[in-house]
């Protein structure tokens, strides 16, 4: 992941889809606070679907979908990207 700006400015890149943070996000292991309705509905529905089917294949589908949504929403995400970045760095 490239965090190309100062800590106070916007983090400009998402971690790659292979990063374990995506699995933690869609399974609910990693909390994420957001006021973005698309992100909140996505995470809630992903976690509901993961709870019903926690298989690896379902998790992969959920990760792919979540990554696509975050990629699309990236231009208007800020705090969310910082929370994800700090979760990646904290490992």
């Amino acid at each position, binding site marked *: 992941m490239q965090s190309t700006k100062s800590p106070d400015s916007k983090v400009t890149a998402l971690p790659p889809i292979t990063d374990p943070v995506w699995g933690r996000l869609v399974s609910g292991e990693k909390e994420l606070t957001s006021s*973005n309705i*698309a992100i909140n*509905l996505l995470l809630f529905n992903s976690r*509901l679907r993961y709870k019903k089917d926690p298989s690896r294949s379902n998790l992969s589908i959920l990760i792919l979908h979540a990554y696509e949504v975050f990629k699309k929403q990236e231009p208007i995400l800020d705090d969310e990207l910082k929370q994800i970045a700090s979760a990646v760095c904290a490992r």
Partner: protein
Amino acid sequence: MLHSIAEVHDKIAAGASLLLAGSEEALSQLPRGNWIGGTIPYFMERNGGVCSESQVFVTEIPQEAVKAHAREYTLQDLPSICKDAPENGFSFIIIPAGCSVHSAYAEDAPSYEGMFSKPVVGWVSGVHISQVDKRRPKVFLGPVGKTLSESAVVMHVALPRCKFAQLDIINVFEPGAGDVITFPASGFSACRCSVNGKPANFAHYISDLRHDLRIPLTADYNGSFVNVSLQSVDAANGIVKFYAPVFSGVEYTLAKPIADYVAAFESTVRNHPVEPVFSCNCVLNYLHAGLEGRRTGKLTGPVTFGEIAHQLLNQTIVSLLIRDVCQEERRAEH
């Protein structure tokens, strides 16, 4: 804003791409053109809530749109709505209340391919309250002059690179601190439920509480509160009907009671700072908060039988904002 039929006629003739709301009588008088519409006679206008059978609420597709393409969606092709949507932009949907497309979208939209990555915004069309169960809500497909009651209409709008469509919701309700309610099956009605893990009949539970039916069920979707409004309680037969489906596996609570619905609603919308491209508000808010003649700040638009911000919502204001992300980025860099 509200316009006379003649004014809307002129806009269509001038080639504008429009999202319209009005009575069936009003919309039926409009010529073919690049517009979609849905039936409803209630609106939030600059000067307050208003009921009009003769005027049409007009939302113009933003000038910066690259393309605006209107089409019909039947029950069969509805799941492909996000696949058909432009890579950057939004899809504006109007669905007639009470039809099979309404229930299908309400129950299945969260699992449609591409949902949440491309914005789907819109509303559920209705009729005057006195005509519920007497007249069918309709939608209109302007390019071909079709009136529909069993299909949705969608305007797919493509935006240029720097413009970004963002959806927002305003909900005066928040989850209460009471019992946690879950349902064994998803749907627009429920008999059985669990209350704090114990089996119960939901109709009997609601009746025993003497619950105010204006207060919805609410679930916390990762910080966004999603309502399910209560339509009716048949205690004798043990059935509760909803205006949107409950979902199995979701934990609901009855929303926190609001002492003064009108005051709570007014203070919530007054604090909303931005003027959206489009907004809509639930007919239950219109009725329960007595919005006829009352202003709703910068939030104007149709009053609806259901609001759509990706998925179907109840008793919520939905807004569509268009942000200039290139300009925001330049500002952040300086």
